[in-house]
Protein backbone atom coordinates (compact mmCIF):
# COMPACT_ATOMS: atom_id res chain seq x y z
CA UNK A 1 0.00 0.00 0.00
CA UNK A 2 1.57 3.24 -1.09
CA UNK A 3 0.62 6.46 0.60
CA UNK A 4 -0.66 8.71 -2.11
CA UNK A 5 -0.71 12.46 -2.15
CA UNK A 6 -4.20 13.41 -3.16
CA UNK A 7 -6.39 16.48 -2.92
CA UNK A 8 -9.59 14.45 -2.49
CA UNK A 9 -11.98 15.56 0.25
CA UNK A 10 -11.62 13.18 3.23
CA UNK A 11 -14.39 12.55 5.78
CA UNK A 12 -13.49 13.50 9.37
CA UNK A 13 -13.85 9.89 10.52
CA UNK A 14 -10.98 8.74 8.28
CA UNK A 15 -7.23 8.99 8.74
CA UNK A 16 -6.55 9.70 5.07
CA UNK A 17 -7.99 9.35 1.57
CA UNK A 18 -6.59 5.84 1.18
CA UNK A 19 -8.31 4.55 4.31
CA UNK A 20 -11.52 6.22 3.15
CA UNK A 21 -11.25 4.51 -0.23
CA UNK A 22 -10.63 1.09 1.35
CA UNK A 23 -13.54 1.51 3.76
CA UNK A 24 -16.02 2.45 1.02
CA UNK A 25 -14.77 -0.36 -1.20
CA UNK A 26 -15.06 -2.92 1.60
CA UNK A 27 -18.65 -1.82 2.29
CA UNK A 28 -19.58 -2.15 -1.37
CA UNK A 29 -18.02 -5.61 -1.60
CA UNK A 30 -19.93 -6.70 1.50
CA UNK A 31 -23.13 -5.63 -0.26
CA UNK A 32 -22.08 -7.45 -3.44
CA UNK A 33 -21.50 -10.64 -1.41
CA UNK A 34 -25.12 -10.50 -0.20
CA UNK A 35 -26.15 -10.04 -3.84
CA UNK A 36 -24.04 -13.04 -4.94
CA UNK A 37 -25.77 -15.22 -2.34
CA UNK A 38 -29.19 -13.74 -3.26
CA UNK A 39 -28.76 -14.74 -6.92
CA UNK A 40 -26.89 -17.89 -5.80
CA UNK A 41 -30.05 -19.36 -4.26
CA UNK A 42 -31.85 -18.96 -7.57
CA UNK A 43 -28.94 -20.49 -9.49
CA UNK A 44 -29.02 -23.41 -7.08
CA UNK A 45 -32.77 -23.91 -7.71
CA UNK A 46 -32.01 -23.81 -11.43
CA UNK A 47 -29.32 -26.51 -11.14
CA UNK A 48 -31.59 -28.81 -9.12
CA UNK A 49 -34.56 -28.52 -11.48
CA UNK A 50 -32.47 -28.67 -14.60
CA UNK A 51 -30.72 -31.87 -13.56
CA UNK A 52 -34.10 -33.47 -12.76
CA UNK A 53 -36.24 -32.09 -15.61
CA UNK A 54 -33.55 -32.19 -18.29
CA UNK A 55 -35.78 -33.03 -21.30
CA UNK A 56 -38.40 -30.42 -20.34
CA UNK A 57 -35.71 -27.74 -19.94
CA UNK A 58 -34.21 -28.56 -23.34
CA UNK A 59 -37.67 -28.44 -24.98
CA UNK A 60 -38.70 -25.23 -23.18
CA UNK A 61 -35.52 -23.30 -23.96
CA UNK A 62 -36.29 -23.48 -27.71
CA UNK A 63 -38.98 -20.88 -26.99
CA UNK A 64 -36.21 -18.37 -26.18
CA UNK A 65 -34.27 -16.76 -29.03
CA UNK A 66 -30.53 -17.17 -28.41
CA UNK A 67 -29.78 -14.38 -30.92
CA UNK A 68 -31.64 -11.84 -28.73
CA UNK A 69 -29.92 -13.24 -25.62
CA UNK A 70 -26.56 -13.03 -27.38
CA UNK A 71 -27.25 -9.48 -28.51
CA UNK A 72 -28.06 -8.53 -24.92
CA UNK A 73 -24.84 -10.20 -23.76
CA UNK A 74 -22.80 -8.07 -26.18
CA UNK A 75 -24.74 -4.94 -25.13
CA UNK A 76 -24.08 -5.55 -21.42
CA UNK A 77 -20.38 -6.35 -21.94
CA UNK A 78 -20.00 -3.13 -23.94
CA UNK A 79 -21.81 -1.19 -21.19
CA UNK A 80 -19.35 -2.64 -18.67
CA UNK A 81 -16.49 -1.29 -20.80
CA UNK A 82 -18.05 2.20 -20.99
CA UNK A 83 -18.67 2.13 -17.22
CA UNK A 84 -15.04 1.14 -16.58
CA UNK A 85 -13.98 4.10 -18.74
CA UNK A 86 -16.36 6.37 -16.77
CA UNK A 87 -14.67 5.27 -13.53
CA UNK A 88 -11.25 5.89 -15.07
CA UNK A 89 -12.32 9.41 -16.12
CA UNK A 90 -13.59 10.01 -12.56
CA UNK A 91 -10.24 8.96 -11.05
CA UNK A 92 -8.38 11.45 -13.29
CA UNK A 93 -11.05 14.09 -12.52
CA UNK A 94 -12.58 14.72 -15.97
CA UNK A 95 -16.23 15.27 -15.07
CA UNK A 96 -17.41 15.84 -18.66
CA UNK A 97 -15.90 12.51 -19.74
CA UNK A 98 -17.48 10.78 -16.74
CA UNK A 99 -20.93 12.04 -17.71
CA UNK A 100 -20.27 11.12 -21.36
CA UNK A 101 -19.26 7.53 -20.59
CA UNK A 102 -22.09 7.13 -18.09
CA UNK A 103 -24.51 8.38 -20.77
CA UNK A 104 -23.17 5.65 -23.11
CA UNK A 105 -23.66 3.08 -20.34
CA UNK A 106 -27.17 4.39 -19.71
CA UNK A 107 -28.13 4.14 -23.40
CA UNK A 108 -26.75 0.58 -23.62
CA UNK A 109 -28.65 -0.40 -20.47
CA UNK A 110 -31.76 1.08 -22.12
CA UNK A 111 -31.12 -1.06 -25.23
CA UNK A 112 -30.88 -4.11 -22.98
CA UNK A 113 -34.25 -3.31 -21.38
CA UNK A 114 -35.90 -2.69 -24.78
CA UNK A 115 -34.75 -6.11 -26.07
CA UNK A 116 -35.97 -7.65 -22.79
CA UNK A 117 -39.34 -5.90 -23.28
CA UNK A 118 -39.79 -7.50 -26.70
CA UNK A 119 -38.75 -10.90 -25.37
CA UNK A 120 -41.14 -10.72 -22.42
CA UNK A 121 -44.05 -9.52 -24.63
CA UNK A 122 -43.54 -12.50 -26.95
CA UNK A 123 -43.62 -14.89 -23.97
CA UNK A 124 -46.85 -13.30 -22.64
CA UNK A 125 -48.45 -13.60 -26.08
CA UNK A 126 -47.48 -17.24 -26.41
CA UNK A 127 -48.94 -18.10 -22.99
CA UNK A 128 -45.52 -18.92 -21.59
CA UNK A 129 -45.81 -16.82 -18.44
CA UNK A 130 -46.26 -19.23 -15.50
CA UNK A 131 -49.75 -19.30 -14.04
CA UNK A 132 -53.26 -20.49 -14.92
CA UNK A 133 -52.90 -19.46 -18.58
CA UNK A 134 -49.62 -21.27 -19.09
CA UNK A 135 -49.71 -23.49 -22.19
CA UNK A 136 -46.87 -25.64 -23.37
CA UNK A 137 -47.72 -28.50 -25.71
CA UNK A 138 -44.84 -30.68 -26.69
CA UNK A 139 -45.06 -34.48 -27.16
CA UNK A 140 -43.58 -36.38 -24.25
CA UNK A 141 -42.93 -33.28 -22.14
CA UNK A 142 -44.70 -32.60 -18.85
CA UNK A 143 -46.15 -29.09 -19.05
CA UNK A 144 -45.57 -28.62 -15.30
CA UNK A 145 -41.87 -29.30 -15.74
CA UNK A 146 -41.65 -26.84 -18.65
CA UNK A 147 -43.47 -24.30 -16.49
CA UNK A 148 -40.68 -24.62 -13.92
CA UNK A 149 -38.22 -23.51 -16.62
CA UNK A 150 -40.27 -20.37 -17.22
CA UNK A 151 -40.73 -19.79 -13.47
CA UNK A 152 -36.96 -19.67 -13.13
CA UNK A 153 -36.55 -17.69 -16.36
CA UNK A 154 -38.89 -14.91 -15.22
CA UNK A 155 -37.66 -14.91 -11.61
CA UNK A 156 -33.97 -14.70 -12.53
CA UNK A 157 -34.09 -12.42 -15.59
CA UNK A 158 -36.74 -10.30 -13.81
CA UNK A 159 -34.55 -9.83 -10.76
CA UNK A 160 -31.60 -9.10 -13.03
CA UNK A 161 -33.70 -6.59 -15.01
CA UNK A 162 -34.62 -4.83 -11.75
CA UNK A 163 -30.90 -4.51 -11.04
CA UNK A 164 -30.34 -2.99 -14.50
CA UNK A 165 -33.08 -0.41 -13.77
CA UNK A 166 -31.55 0.44 -10.38
CA UNK A 167 -28.17 0.86 -12.10
CA UNK A 168 -29.73 3.26 -14.64
CA UNK A 169 -31.30 5.36 -11.85
CA UNK A 170 -27.95 5.43 -10.03
CA UNK A 171 -26.25 6.76 -13.17
CA UNK A 172 -28.78 9.60 -13.54
CA UNK A 173 -28.28 10.60 -9.89
CA UNK A 174 -24.48 10.51 -10.25
CA UNK A 175 -24.55 12.54 -13.47
CA UNK A 176 -26.70 15.24 -11.80
CA UNK A 177 -24.38 15.27 -8.77
CA UNK A 178 -21.32 15.65 -11.00
CA UNK A 179 -22.94 18.50 -12.93
CA UNK A 180 -24.00 20.35 -9.78
CA UNK A 181 -20.52 19.96 -8.25
CA UNK A 182 -18.69 20.68 -11.51
CA UNK A 183 -16.61 23.53 -10.06
CA UNK A 184 -15.07 21.55 -7.21
CA UNK A 185 -12.70 18.62 -6.88
CA UNK A 186 -15.25 15.80 -6.65
CA UNK A 187 -14.72 12.55 -4.80
CA UNK A 188 -14.64 9.75 -7.41
CA UNK A 189 -15.76 7.05 -4.97
CA UNK A 190 -19.52 7.19 -5.78
CA UNK A 191 -18.77 6.60 -9.49
CA UNK A 192 -16.32 3.82 -8.56
CA UNK A 193 -18.95 2.08 -6.40
CA UNK A 194 -21.62 2.43 -9.09
CA UNK A 195 -19.07 0.87 -11.45
CA UNK A 196 -18.59 -2.12 -9.14
CA UNK A 197 -22.36 -2.56 -9.00
CA UNK A 198 -22.67 -2.33 -12.77
CA UNK A 199 -19.94 -4.91 -13.38
CA UNK A 200 -21.75 -7.22 -10.97
CA UNK A 201 -24.94 -6.85 -13.05
CA UNK A 202 -22.89 -7.78 -16.13
CA UNK A 203 -21.39 -10.73 -14.26
CA UNK A 204 -24.81 -12.19 -13.40
CA UNK A 205 -25.89 -11.97 -17.04
CA UNK A 206 -22.72 -13.79 -18.12
CA UNK A 207 -24.10 -16.82 -16.24
CA UNK A 208 -27.77 -16.31 -17.13
CA UNK A 209 -27.17 -16.23 -20.89
CA UNK A 210 -25.83 -19.81 -21.37
CA UNK A 211 -28.16 -21.23 -18.69
CA UNK A 212 -31.38 -20.04 -20.33
CA UNK A 213 -30.61 -19.47 -24.00
CA UNK A 214 -28.06 -22.19 -24.75
CA UNK A 215 -29.38 -25.25 -22.91
CA UNK A 216 -27.06 -27.97 -24.18
CA UNK A 217 -26.25 -29.17 -27.64
CA UNK A 218 -29.46 -29.05 -29.71
Amino acid at each position, binding site marked *: *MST*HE*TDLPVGHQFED*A*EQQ*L*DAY*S*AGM*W*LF*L*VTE*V*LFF*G*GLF*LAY*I*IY*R*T*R*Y*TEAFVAAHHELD*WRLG*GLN*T*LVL*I*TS*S*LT*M*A*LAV*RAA*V*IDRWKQVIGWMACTFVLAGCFMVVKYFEYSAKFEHHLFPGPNFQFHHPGI*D*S*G*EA*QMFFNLYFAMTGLHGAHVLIGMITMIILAIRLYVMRNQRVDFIPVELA*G*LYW*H*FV*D*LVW*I*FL*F*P*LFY*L*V*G*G*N
Partner: protein
Amino acid sequence: MSFEPAKPQTYLLTFAALIVLTIITVLAARVVLPKIPMGIMVLDLNIVLAMAIACVKASLVVLYFMHFKDMGQVSKVWASAGVFFLLVMFFLTLGDYENRHPEETKGWTESGVLHDRRP
Protein backbone atom coordinates in the same frame (compact mmCIF):
# COMPACT_ATOMS: atom_id res chain seq x y z
CA MET B 1 -9.41 0.32 -6.73
CA SER B 2 -6.64 2.84 -6.33
CA PHE B 3 -5.78 6.45 -7.02
CA GLU B 4 -3.84 5.43 -10.13
CA PRO B 5 -6.06 5.17 -13.21
CA ALA B 6 -5.78 1.87 -15.10
CA LYS B 7 -4.65 1.94 -18.73
CA PRO B 8 -7.50 2.11 -21.29
CA GLN B 9 -5.74 -0.71 -23.20
CA THR B 10 -6.34 -3.04 -20.24
CA TYR B 11 -10.07 -2.37 -20.47
CA LEU B 12 -10.14 -2.75 -24.26
CA LEU B 13 -8.26 -6.08 -24.11
CA THR B 14 -10.61 -7.35 -21.38
CA PHE B 15 -13.57 -6.26 -23.50
CA ALA B 16 -12.18 -8.05 -26.58
CA ALA B 17 -11.56 -11.24 -24.57
CA LEU B 18 -15.14 -11.14 -23.21
CA ILE B 19 -16.59 -10.77 -26.73
CA VAL B 20 -14.46 -13.66 -28.06
CA LEU B 21 -15.49 -15.87 -25.12
CA THR B 22 -19.17 -15.03 -25.74
CA ILE B 23 -18.81 -16.21 -29.35
CA ILE B 24 -17.05 -19.38 -28.10
CA THR B 25 -19.95 -19.98 -25.66
CA VAL B 26 -22.47 -19.81 -28.52
CA LEU B 27 -20.39 -22.11 -30.75
CA ALA B 28 -19.74 -24.59 -27.90
CA ALA B 29 -23.50 -24.96 -27.37
CA ARG B 30 -23.85 -26.27 -30.95
CA VAL B 31 -21.62 -29.27 -30.26
CA VAL B 32 -23.53 -32.13 -28.62
CA LEU B 33 -21.55 -33.46 -25.65
CA PRO B 34 -22.59 -36.57 -23.69
CA LYS B 35 -25.01 -36.45 -20.75
CA ILE B 36 -23.77 -38.58 -17.86
CA PRO B 37 -26.40 -39.97 -15.45
CA MET B 38 -25.37 -39.48 -11.80
CA GLY B 39 -27.88 -40.93 -9.37
CA ILE B 40 -31.17 -39.08 -9.85
CA MET B 41 -29.36 -36.29 -11.65
CA VAL B 42 -28.01 -36.02 -15.18
CA LEU B 43 -24.64 -34.33 -15.60
CA ASP B 44 -24.72 -32.52 -18.92
CA LEU B 45 -21.18 -31.89 -20.18
CA ASN B 46 -22.45 -29.06 -22.40
CA ILE B 47 -23.46 -27.07 -19.36
CA VAL B 48 -20.21 -27.91 -17.56
CA LEU B 49 -18.30 -26.43 -20.52
CA ALA B 50 -20.62 -23.40 -20.73
CA MET B 51 -20.19 -22.72 -17.00
CA ALA B 52 -16.40 -23.14 -17.24
CA ILE B 53 -16.29 -20.45 -19.96
CA ALA B 54 -18.66 -18.25 -17.92
CA CYS B 55 -16.33 -18.59 -14.89
CA VAL B 56 -13.38 -17.44 -17.02
CA LYS B 57 -15.45 -14.44 -18.20
CA ALA B 58 -16.53 -13.64 -14.64
CA SER B 59 -12.88 -13.79 -13.49
CA LEU B 60 -11.88 -11.34 -16.23
CA VAL B 61 -14.63 -8.92 -15.14
CA VAL B 62 -13.62 -9.17 -11.46
CA LEU B 63 -9.86 -8.94 -12.10
CA TYR B 64 -9.79 -6.14 -14.67
CA PHE B 65 -13.09 -4.21 -14.68
CA MET B 66 -13.52 -4.40 -10.89
CA HIS B 67 -9.70 -4.19 -10.43
CA PHE B 68 -9.46 -6.94 -7.84
CA LYS B 69 -5.69 -6.78 -7.44
CA ASP B 70 -5.72 -3.08 -6.51
CA MET B 71 -8.39 -3.58 -3.85
CA GLY B 72 -7.76 -3.24 -0.12
CA GLN B 73 -7.25 -6.40 1.97
CA VAL B 74 -10.69 -6.25 3.59
CA SER B 75 -12.44 -6.02 0.21
CA LYS B 76 -10.46 -9.03 -1.02
CA VAL B 77 -11.53 -11.01 2.05
CA TRP B 78 -15.20 -10.12 1.43
CA ALA B 79 -15.04 -10.98 -2.26
CA SER B 80 -13.38 -14.34 -1.53
CA ALA B 81 -15.83 -15.08 1.28
CA GLY B 82 -18.70 -14.56 -1.18
CA VAL B 83 -17.34 -17.20 -3.53
CA PHE B 84 -16.53 -19.55 -0.64
CA PHE B 85 -19.99 -19.41 0.95
CA LEU B 86 -21.66 -19.72 -2.47
CA LEU B 87 -19.75 -22.98 -2.99
CA VAL B 88 -20.64 -24.18 0.52
CA MET B 89 -24.32 -23.58 -0.23
CA PHE B 90 -24.08 -25.35 -3.60
CA PHE B 91 -22.17 -28.42 -2.43
CA LEU B 92 -24.15 -29.03 0.77
CA THR B 93 -27.52 -28.65 -0.98
CA LEU B 94 -26.60 -30.68 -4.06
CA GLY B 95 -25.02 -33.38 -1.88
CA ASP B 96 -28.27 -33.57 0.05
CA TYR B 97 -30.39 -33.88 -3.10
CA GLU B 98 -28.05 -36.48 -4.53
CA ASN B 99 -28.07 -38.73 -1.47
CA ARG B 100 -31.73 -38.84 -0.45
CA HIS B 101 -33.71 -42.04 -0.52
CA PRO B 102 -35.95 -42.53 -3.55
CA GLU B 103 -39.20 -42.25 -1.57
CA GLU B 104 -38.14 -38.76 -0.47
CA THR B 105 -37.11 -37.56 -3.94
CA LYS B 106 -40.49 -36.79 -5.35
CA GLY B 107 -41.62 -34.09 -7.73
CA TRP B 108 -44.93 -32.32 -8.25
CA THR B 109 -47.18 -32.96 -11.22
CA GLU B 110 -49.48 -30.30 -12.60
CA SER B 111 -52.44 -31.73 -10.67
CA GLY B 112 -50.49 -31.45 -7.44
CA VAL B 113 -50.07 -35.19 -6.92
CA LEU B 114 -46.69 -36.35 -5.71
CA HIS B 115 -44.95 -38.84 -7.95
CA ASP B 116 -41.56 -40.48 -8.01
CA ARG B 117 -39.23 -39.01 -10.61
CA ARG B 118 -36.46 -41.55 -10.25
CA PRO B 119 -36.08 -43.53 -13.50
